[in-house]
């Protein structure tokens, strides 16, 4: 059995097991969730360490027939692109289980949903079958909905719950149509990503077909990643969600769409990509500039981080749009780095909210004195968000900018301006408003406590340490990502033959053919 199968099913089995636990065994529920995610983390780390970057193709593969008549398999495996994402998923999942101490009611149900979501997320990134990939992603939809609804906060909770669910369903369905169209037009009768990529490299689809399918995937996956102007669900949803959901969703699950673009859309539809990528660049500038400016105007710390997270997605889109080795490698790097950062930021604001009962920046101030540890970590996270060297974000974003410079130089200028200047403005203003300055009176006389025990500090330390580690030694990731991306982009050639099915067939011909 592949270790990947283990880390996918461990949380799911744990969730199923919890369903039969009596309701008042709160501590047991929490312990089971912690153990399941911890074992997943350890196995994930070992897998990451044992991953051999020099080896070509997928590793830790397991393939079992699932629906043979449709060419659907349970097929998991990793190469340089998703090994980092799987690692990200297990780290954030463990951290999310750790910060869930804030949940004080209906714990059993909470942990069942959290573990289901975790299993779905890890599964989505480990899948090598298009159907499985989609299946696992959707597994997280219902838990997200219920968790935000039941344990979420804020006045706009209901609105946010439905908004996030409807947007995610819409994006997923559009992407599904694109994936099915790809499956059918390839004429191979398999959902196997590896097989599809290999075959389509030798015999690409016709240019019109590619140009037709690509936008379904681009907009479908784009909506899932909060591509401007379909981003409004993200900040609001994250601000209303319980901490663990924001961490998992903003940190990991959202990367699903980006991963889909890199793994499916770019290598299998290179010609389609070539004619649509300038649209992606334009929209991603919307992410970076527009959402950056929106972030500047926020008064709520969570909304600010949510908007900045949407803005950061713009960098990944830019990296993907560069369609070259440096840019796409950078995009994968930003995905991992931003995942860690977003999880860390939401973990910190979650803690802050628990302590101060508000995230309104006008009512916060001078908190560094009362909470030196959380404050320091938080300031470091915010600086990482500005793209300070030493954190993994810097490496990734710099590579993206190098990559995109060759293709769209003007976009690079705009992105630099948006990323560095605007990003620095809102992040530093937030640091000043929350942590520095004169101490404000706490809301309702809440007691301000710094993270008291090592286990409360553990999730923050874990996430920050990973961020710094990958920032200082980015080769740990880039050495793995680079060869995989190079292989992925090797199929960037022109179509050599008409495809199996030409979409452009006119209606008249189609009827006559019948």
């Amino acid at each position: 059995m592949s270790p990947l199968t283990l880390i996918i099913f461990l949380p799911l089995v744990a969730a199923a097991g919890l369903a039969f636990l009596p309701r008042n065994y709160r501590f047991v529920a929490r312990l089971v969730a912690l153990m399941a995610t911890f074992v997943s983390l350890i196995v994930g780390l070992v897998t990451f360490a044992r991953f051999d970057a020099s080896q070509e193709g997928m590793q830790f593969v397991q393939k079992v027939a699932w629906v043979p008549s449709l060419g659907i398999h349970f097929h998991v495996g990793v190469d340089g692109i998703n090994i980092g994402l799987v690692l990200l998923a297990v780290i954030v999942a463990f951290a999310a289980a750790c910060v869930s101490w804030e949940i004080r009611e209906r714990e059993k149900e909470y942990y069942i949903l959290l573990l289901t979501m975790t299993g779905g997320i890890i599964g989505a990134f480990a899948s090598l079958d298009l159907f499985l990939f989609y299946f696992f992603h959707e597994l997280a939809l219902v838990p997200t909905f219920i968790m935000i609804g039941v344990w979420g906060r804020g006045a706009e909770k209901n609105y946010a719950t439905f908004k996030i669910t409807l947007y995610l369903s819409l994006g997923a369905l559009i992407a599904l149509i694109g994936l099915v169209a790809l499956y059918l037009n390839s004429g191979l009768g398999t959902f196997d990503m590896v097989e599809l990529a290999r075959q389509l490299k030798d015999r690409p689809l016709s240019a019109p077909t590619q140009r037709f399918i690509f936008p379904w995937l681009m907009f479908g996956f784009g909506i899932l990643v909060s591509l401007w102007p379909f981003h409004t669900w993200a900040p609001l949803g994250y601000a209303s969600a319980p901490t663990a959901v924001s961490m998992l969703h903003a940190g990991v699950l959202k990367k699903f769409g980006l991963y889909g673009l890199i793994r499916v859309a770019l290598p299998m539809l290179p010609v389609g990509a070539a004619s649509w990528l300038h649209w992606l660049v334009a929209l991603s500038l919307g992410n970076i500039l527009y959402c950056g400016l929106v972030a500047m105007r926020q008064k709520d710390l969570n909304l600010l981080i949510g908007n900045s997270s949407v803005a950061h997605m713009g960098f990944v889109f830019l990296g993907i749009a560069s369609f070259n080795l440096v840019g796409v490698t950078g995009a994968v790097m930003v995905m991992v780095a931003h995942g860690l950062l977003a999880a860390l930021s939401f973990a910190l604001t979650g803690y802050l909210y628990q302590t101060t009962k508000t995230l309104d920046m006008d009512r916060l101030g001078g908190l560094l004195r009362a909470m030196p540890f959380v404050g320091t970590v938080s300031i470091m996270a915010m600086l990482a968000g500005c793209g300070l060297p030493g954190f993994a974000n810097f490496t990734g974003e710099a590579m993206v900018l190098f990559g995109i410079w060759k293709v769209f130089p003007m976009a690079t200028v705009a992105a630099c301006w948006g990323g560095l200047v605007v990003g620095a403005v809102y992040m530093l203003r937030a640091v000043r408003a929350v942590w520095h300055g004169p101490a404000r009176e706490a809301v309702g006389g809440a007691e301000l406590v710094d993270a008291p025990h090592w286990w409360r500090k553990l999730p923050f330390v874990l996430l920050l340490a990973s961020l710094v580690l990958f920032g200082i030694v980015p080769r740990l990731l880039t050495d793995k990502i680079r060869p995989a991306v190079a292989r992925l982009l090797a199929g960037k050639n022109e179509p050599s033959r008409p495809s199996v099915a030409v979409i452009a067939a006119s209606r008249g011909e189609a009827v006559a053919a019948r």
Partner: protein
Amino acid sequence: MSVSYLFLEIMVVLTGLGLLLIDLWTPAVHKRRLGYAAAAVTALILALSFSKMVDPGAPVHAFGGLFVQDAFALFFKRFFLVAAVLVLLMEVEFADRIPAGITEYYAVTLFALAGMMTAASANDFTLLFVALELMAVTFYVLASFQRSRVASLEAGVKYLILGALSSAILVYGIALIYGSTGTMNFTKIAEQSARLKESKIAVLGFLFVLVGLGFKVGVVPMQIWVPDVYQGAPTPTSAFLAVGSKAAGFALLLRVLHGAAPEVALSWERLLMILSGLTILYGSLCAIPQRNLKRLLGYSSIANAGYLFIGVSVGTLSGASAVLYYLAGYLFAVVAAFFVICVVSKTHDSEDISELAGLWNRSPLLASVLSLSMVSLAGVPPLAGFFGKFLLLKAAAEQAVSYPGYYVLLSVAVVGVVISVYYYFGVVRAIFWSRDDQELSAIPISRPVKAALWVCVAGMVLLGVLPSWGVRVTAAAAGMLKF
């Protein structure tokens, strides 16, 4: 011998008649329990449907070509039997709300079942009409069985008037077809199919037949009765209408379009697509403001008829087998939902969504089952509804290669599904969190209900997680039709 292929239907009718007889000697207090006996015998008949005598392996025509026993017919017969077992258990649960004649209620349900099962085997317009009328007449009675409730009577009368109208149109259509072909047999009509496409009278006849069958499945513009009847009828009847009657309609629709008039069906592709799109939009949009659960399910059943119609309009093997798969998933989800409504509305005579507030605390099982059912209907993995929708989508996308118009229909379907996520998840929301969950008393659930709910859950989960077997069975069943 021909009669042996009618074995299942005969058994069902005999069970119904037997119930009516036993009723004479049963004391009033025990009459309610006769439902368990009826469910048990129906389950036994379901088991017998797998025997060699009933299942000939290859398609067999009987009674001079009137009746056909093939994998397609058997698929639907088993489908109806499963539905009937669950509905009978629901009726026992509902018994205290039926003022008198509970045994007749069980028996009439069984007669409706016999009608559906006959419909699955119809290979002739005569048998088609007889089967449909058997279903229609029994459902007029079933819908108005709560004689003291005005809503129930209203539902019965509405269904009677509109049903009679649709039957009349259907008969007219059959007459026109008979007039232009000289036969009622599907196989013989199919031999003249190429010529029929040119004959305006025959095409009009098929159009009328489409109207008659469209009424059964609730497709635009024959959908008006659905929400009113679902809301007013006793809950088990609504469930049986939603599952059995609809599935019988689709079985006949597929049989007529692919068995009797393949050429006509092909030339109607665009008409069917437009009907499908309109049905999806009508059902989804009208469901948004609904507060009554049964009415909501009524509109949702219209929307689902629209999705199923996609599979009919593509007119391919994968389309037809997707319809069968979708129906199988739909059966468990809808029956589960009506089951929960039936149990929850026991104490209050209200089926408002707000009645679900606090259900999560009152009964975790009912809450989970209803949530799973809604999630499955919304088409979210890992449940049956998702795989059914996926198969339909795939079937339509296959045709889109030659006719890009299907991408428009797919886009309409996507809009419909997103809207449906809104209203289905609205129910989930009411279960898990809503402002006023005052009522906190636990809801007692009897053991047979528990078993039935678990069967529904197992059906939804297995068809979603292990679809391989179901795909094979539905493909084999649909393979009996001509494409």
